[in-house]
Each structure stands twice: as structure tokens, then as C-alpha cells.
């Protein structure tokens, strides 16, 4: 596995999943049938959701009648860092989602301060899988949410940095359960996710530490108001572990607006507060993400 490139890894992943899922579907595929915006957007980890928080929605525009996909790119401008991430995800029959994302954190001057060199960039690959277990985010019982479980396997490319900051491992796997519902009677979308993780700064600083190396439950919440079929405004909160002795880690928070330019293209802009990252406090800035979905 270590010798295989991330994309090859993902392709194998996809092929296996497709082989497992497709024979059950004898009917003709119908793609692109979801209602506008009900596929959500892409998180920084590549899964379908909000911007920072993962939801139970399945990526892509296909319903249970088809196969959909999305691709996204995200930039976050912070006082001391620049974040870029991009990825693709595929949704099978509104049931299973497979995703891949690449995260890059440019440390700019902090890299020099930490002895890594100015502009040193931390990189990570995130492989995700999600299964919708029950419920429907839009239809059905008005109080029954869409519920999904998922896994994200993360592989930092910076083993030496992870070891230097005290991370126990450059690889880690998160598990989560998520519930999402659009409460039509109030035009409000709400999401709650519990993630079991030991990631340090999402995994960019590795996983766990010598003293703290257990998966712990963390919470991701989103709430949004739907102003129109195309326009949603909301906020998110995400708690995180604080495993490393050398630097404090804070919870994340954002206020976002998402607009569906077309049936296929959604732009999301947000104000994000990522707290303290590797000794640099008050990392608040602008988040911009573009998603194409089919």
C-alpha cells in the first residue's frame, strides 16, 4: 500500500466499490436527479457536508437511481498560513460515498520559526467512505434525519515533522456517525456529527501523542437557513482533540454562505476561526470553495 500513489489507491478503491454495488442495479441509471443544493458541498476532508463539518449527505447529484460525483477546490487565507485542498468524491445510488482529498498547509514564516524552512508545506491525503444507513434529509418523516456512518483514513506525508512535534503516528483513521435534516417547515438545515479521532490539526500534525493516543469523541455541528433554492447561510462548530504538548489546539468555527450558481456549480464563502495552529494563535480568515457536482 505504501508504494501505491494516492490516486492509484483511490482508483482501486472505486473499482472495488463499483463492482460490489453495481450488480444489484438492474434498472437504467438516472443521474443528476437531486433537488438543488441537497447534495451539500465538500468538506476540507473531501466528504459531502458543509465546509468544515461532515454531513450524512451523499456527494454528487444522483439519487438512489444513479451514480453522481463531485470535485472541489478550497482555499483558506489565514494570518500565518495558507490552506489549499482539493478532491473528488463519488456517490453511488445515494447510499455509498467514496472520497479522496489532498490537503496542503503552507506554513509561510512559521515554517522558518519551526526550523522547517520558510514556506514549508504540510501535506496529507484523506481517503473517505460513507454509508447512508437510514432516513432522508429532505423527504419522509419530518423529524427523522438522514443518518450515515463513515470512515476517513488520513496519511500525512510529513513523517519527520509529525515525529518532531510529538505526534505518535503520521497515519490515522477517523470514524464518525452523522445525522442531517432539512426541516422544511422552518427552512432550516441542521447537522450533528460525532467523530472518533486522535488527529492533531486534522492529521496534518499526525495522530495522537506519547501521552494521549486514544480515539476520542468530538462533535461537529452545522445549522443553516435556506433563503432560496440557491442560497443558504449558516454556521458550523467543530471540536478537536488537543494531544500535543508543544502547541495548543482549538475548536473550529465558521460562518458560511453557499450559492448554487447552476445545478452543477456551488460556491461557498466563509469566515473561519481555526484558533491556534502550531503555536500561532488567532488563525481567523477567509474560506472560499468551489464545487462542481454531477
Amino acid at each position, binding site marked *: 500500500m505504501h508504494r501505491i500513489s494516492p490516486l492509484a489507491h483511490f482508483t482501486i478503491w472505486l473499482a472495488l466499490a463499483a463492482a460490489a454495488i453495481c450488480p444489484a442495479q438492474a*434498472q437504467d441509471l*438516472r443521474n443528476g*436527479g*437531486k*433537488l*438543488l443544493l441537497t447534495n451539500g458541498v465538500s468538506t476540507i476532508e473531501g466528504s459531502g457536508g458543509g465546509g468544515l463539518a461532515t454531513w450524512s449527505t451523499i456527494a454528487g447529484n444522483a*439519487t*438512489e*437511481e*444513479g451514480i453522481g460525483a463531485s470535485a472541489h477546490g478550497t482555499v483558506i487565507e489565514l494570518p500565518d498560513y495558507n490552506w489549499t485542498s482539493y478532491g473528488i468524491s463519488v456517490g453511488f445510488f*445515494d447510499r455509498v460515498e467514496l472520497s479522496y482529498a489532498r490537503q496542503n498547509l503552507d506554513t509561510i514564516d512559521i515554517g522558518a520559526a519551526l526550523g522547517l524552512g520558510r514556506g514549508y508545506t504540510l501535506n496529507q491525503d484523506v481517503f473517505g467512505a460513507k454509508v447512508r444507513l437510514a432516513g*432522508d434529509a*429532505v*423527504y*419522509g*418523516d*419530518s423529524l427523522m434525519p438522514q443518518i450515515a456512518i463513515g470512515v476517513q483514513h488520513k496519511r500525512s506525508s510529513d513523517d519527520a515533522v509529525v515525529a518532531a512535534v510529538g505526534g505518535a503516528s503520521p497515519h490515522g483513521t477517523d470514524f464518525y456517525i452523522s445525522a442531517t435534516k432539512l*426541516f*422544511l*417547515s*422552518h*427552512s432550516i438545515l441542521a447537522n450533528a456529527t460525532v467523530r472518533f479521532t486522535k488527529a492533531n490539526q486534522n492529521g496534518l500534525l499526525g495522530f495522537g501523542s506519547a501521552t494521549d493516543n486514544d480515539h476520542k469523541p468530538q462533535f461537529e455541528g452545522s445549522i443553516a437557513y*435556506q*433563503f*432560496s*433554492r440557491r442560497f443558504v447561510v449558516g454556521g458550523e462548530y467543530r471540536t478537536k482533540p488537543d494531544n500535543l504538548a508543544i502547541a495548543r489546539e482549538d475548536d473550529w468555527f465558521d460562518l458560511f454562505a453557499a450559492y448554487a450558481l447552476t445545478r452543477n456549480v456551488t460556491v461557498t464563502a466563509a469566515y473561519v476561526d481555526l484558533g491556534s495552529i502550531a503555536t500561532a494563535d488567532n488563525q481567523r480568515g477567509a474560506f472560499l470553495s468551489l464545487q462542481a457536482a454531477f
Partner: protein
Amino acid sequence: MFSLIIALALSAAQDIAAAPEAEADPAAAEAAPVPKEPERDPVTGELPVDPYEMSNANAGAGSFSGTGMRDAFHGQDGIRRIVNDMVDRSVADPRISEIFVAHDLVRLRRTLFEQFCYILNAGCDYSGRDMANSHKDLGLQVDDLNVLVEHLQAAMAAETISFAAQNRFLSKLAPMKRDVVTR
């Protein structure tokens, strides 16, 4: 919403499908009595349907209380415009138009209007079939339902219904999916 459509249409479709088999054998047709085409009611313009028990419970959702939603939808006139616009958009949409081919659109427009009017508490009773019976033979998929919902949204937007009121109304229709989508 969808369900009504279908229910109405269904009953009409059954009658139409049963009727014209006479052409197959002209000789036999002469000897045997020719099955009659169902005739539209001279007053309502609707095709006959098999009898069923009428009840507002068939509407698949209860009424809103108060007059807020009735007013938000511009009363019965507004509801009628929305229903007609939604049906017009749907029958013209190649993605779902086939569903309506054998349907009695006169009855469909009436029963849909009654259902919307009843749910919006705008002073109507619903006289159509229930959602499960009206959709059971249509073989609808989620994609069909979503297309219909988008036409309803477009019709409500054309009637300048506020988005919050649109969603409030849709919240009454959303649970009907389980009776409407059958495959």
C-alpha cells in the same frame, strides 16, 4: 402533490386501457357489441372512475391552522394558478411527461387543487383517492418526484409565494414520498 396527480390519472388510465381492443379483429367487432369509449362527464369534463370512499384523510396531510398559509398562497385563486402552472410544466417536461399521457388532466387539476386548498386551509374538501392507491401502479422514482417538486417550486415562485411559505407547504408534502415512490 404528486400523488394526487397520479391517483387521478390512474383511474383514467385504467378505463382507457381497457376500452379499445375492438380494432384487433374487425369481423368480431361487427358481431360483438363494440366496447364504448369512456365518455367525459358533460358538466365536469372528467372521465368516469371506479367508486371509492371519499375523505379528507385521503389528502395525505392535515390542514394548516389559521389563515396565514391561505393568505400566503393568495387564496383559492392563487392555489388554482399554482396547480395549473405546475401541471402545465409537468406535462411539457420530457423527463416526466409520459406519466401523464393516459391521465385525465381535468380530474387531475381539480383533485390537486382540492388537495392543496385543503392542506392550506383555504376552504376546500378533498375528494380524490388516497396517495398510496393513486400512485400504486405508476412506478415512480425519486427522480420523478424531484422533477415534480421543482415544477411546483417554479409555479409557487411565479405566484410570488415567499420561500419560507413554499417550504412550509412542502413540509406537508414531503412525508408522502413513501406512498408515492414505489420503485
